[in-house]
């Protein structure tokens, strides 16, 4: 088996027995390179962090408008009909709301005791009792 020769201690110009070169770059070179690279990255992040406050007091600090998700809460919006950011989702939401409005019980005006009936139930009641305002169904 091969004696465990230290890769780099083979003298410079002898012909290594194995017929191929085994000497690699000294570890120190790789370490220096790695450290240099790390320093470059740290330098980039530090310079970036440092330059923002410097520029901040150079020019007045208007709001930094952050790009973010489409949230209309707290925004001054133009009146309806408004530009819709996501028409398919809005339509789906609208139809669901509409359907629940038609099929469920709920208060229309709690103080005056006006309540909303599912449309089918309302039709049955109208069929039974007729509607007080309309002349009786003759």
């Amino acid at each position, binding site marked *: 088996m091969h004696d465990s020769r230290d890769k780099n201690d083979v003298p410079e110009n002898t*012909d290594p027995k194995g017929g*191929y070169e085994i000497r690699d770059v000294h570890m120190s070179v790789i370490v220096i*390179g790695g450290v240099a690279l790390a320093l470059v990255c740290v330098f980039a992040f530090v310079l*970036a962090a440092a330059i923002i406050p410097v520029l901040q007091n150079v020019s007045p600090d208007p709001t930094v408008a952050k790009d973010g998700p489409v949230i209309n809460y707290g925004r001054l919006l133009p009146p309806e009909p408004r530009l819709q950011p996501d028409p398919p989702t809005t339509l789906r939401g609208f139809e669901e709301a509409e359907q629940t409005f038609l099929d469920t019980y709920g208060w229309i005006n709690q103080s005056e005791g006006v309540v909303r009936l599912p449309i089918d139930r309302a039709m049955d009641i109208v069929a039974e009792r007729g509607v007080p305002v309309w002349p009786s169904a003759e």
Partner: protein
Amino acid sequence: MSTQIAEADALPRPNYLNVKRSILSWLLTTDHKRIGILYLISITVFFLAGGLFAALIRIELLTPQADLVESDIYNRLFTLHGIIMIFFFLVPSIPAVLGNFLLPLMLGAKDLAFPRLNLLSWYLYWIGGVFAVVVLLQGGVDTGWTFYTPFSSFASNGNVVLAAAGGFVAGFSSILTGLNFIVTIHKMRAPGLTWFRLPLFVWAHYATSLIQVLATPVLGISLVLIMVERVWRVGIFDPTIGGDPVLFQHLFWFYSHPAVYIMILPGMGVVSEVITCFSRKRIFGYHMIAFSSLAIAILGFLVWGHHMFVSTQAMYTGIVFSILTMLVAIPSAIKVFNWTATLYKGQIYFEAPMLFVFGFLGLFTIGGLTGLFLGLLAADIHFHDTHFVVAHFHYVMVGGMVMAYLAGLHFWWPKMTGRMYNRQLAALAAILIFVGFNMTFFPQFILGALGMPRRYHVYNEEFQLLNVMSTAGAGVMGIGYLLPLIYMPLSLFVGKRAGANPWLAKGLEWTVPSPPTTYNFDHTPVVTEEPYAYDNRLHAAGMGQGE
């Protein structure tokens, strides 16, 4: 005594080309030199296809309105032009052709570390190629070579999945080639060939292979995610159901910037070899150039955000990426200065490879400096997604890399084929390409400044004149590119015998006959001297004459 050698030389000695002639021996070869030739033929085919699309693009852009093709076809034209040129021509070009052919020769080895893996790489390249052809026949893909979501995931009607699969498979060809090179450079150097005696061509390929191995898998996973998103639309990149389209941009550019350094570093390696040989002078600052290659490779992984300055990136992120982009330019600057200094006090020969390298120096410098423009936040806001960017990357990729590829091809052609090509025609080709190139792409800098957006097949009136100039230039350049396609194959039949070292160059590959035998070296060479040990005082008699 000398006559026997001449006679022996006259008979076609068995070399890697004529040792076996059957088609099967070529298709199942594990000889790195034959695989290099197979790649040479393959990428030329794809270069012509990509060039054809480029020609169609330029013809369409002659007029402000859509004449030659409708917008949908045009979108597919530039997408396929981009994909074919990058993935099937430029990324493999120097590593797969010249790298495969020359690395074992330069290292004093008989072959790459994993010959069978090398053949598998070529087949993976061709499976990817077949996918690309199928995509072409199925009507192409219209997402741009960048595949941005959510357009590519739900709005495109092109064959995105097929194209992504093609890219995925071809990516592995690049990974396995890189893996093969790294192991070969580490483990199979001839005795005495320590790291700082390696030719800079080998250093460049070492850095390139590092990027290929570490960056290409990320492209693989991004393409897989695109395929999943397009087939099942489960919202990975679909904002309406919680996904983030910018995440794809991050994953894509994390590969694609290192990929552009995969494309340029081998070219820089060729320039180092050619410029020393034809100025008969030791390279200036060997260690600095070697380390610059590695610095470019490593820093190249940290700058991908400069492609997304105007997407909804936070200010701090943009600033950090801008700083790192500035720093990644420094190693390239060092190299250009070192090459220029190498010419000082040399014996300069204006052979064809050297003319291409002169072209490289000029055009790469323009491309690189405009890259700096784009790396500066203020400038990129205006220039992003305009023809300024198109001009930048054609200057570095076509002006830089393709010039270097042609320089390498003209430099090692005698070694690969044993023949000399017509050197006057080669000089003419170099000049034609250089002039045609500048006429094609310099106007695009101005178009970009004027604000002509990219990927527009219909544009405003005021941009027409510059576009006409650009198309005219493309014609001149096209002819320039066609010349080597004529005189090089021709040289196989009528070219003079080149002999072992027509350029009297240093390097182990010039110590073996041209074309080399299948096992390169009869006995393993021992390296004792520094690389590029030229004597700049001597006149290199017989340069380029061959036998």
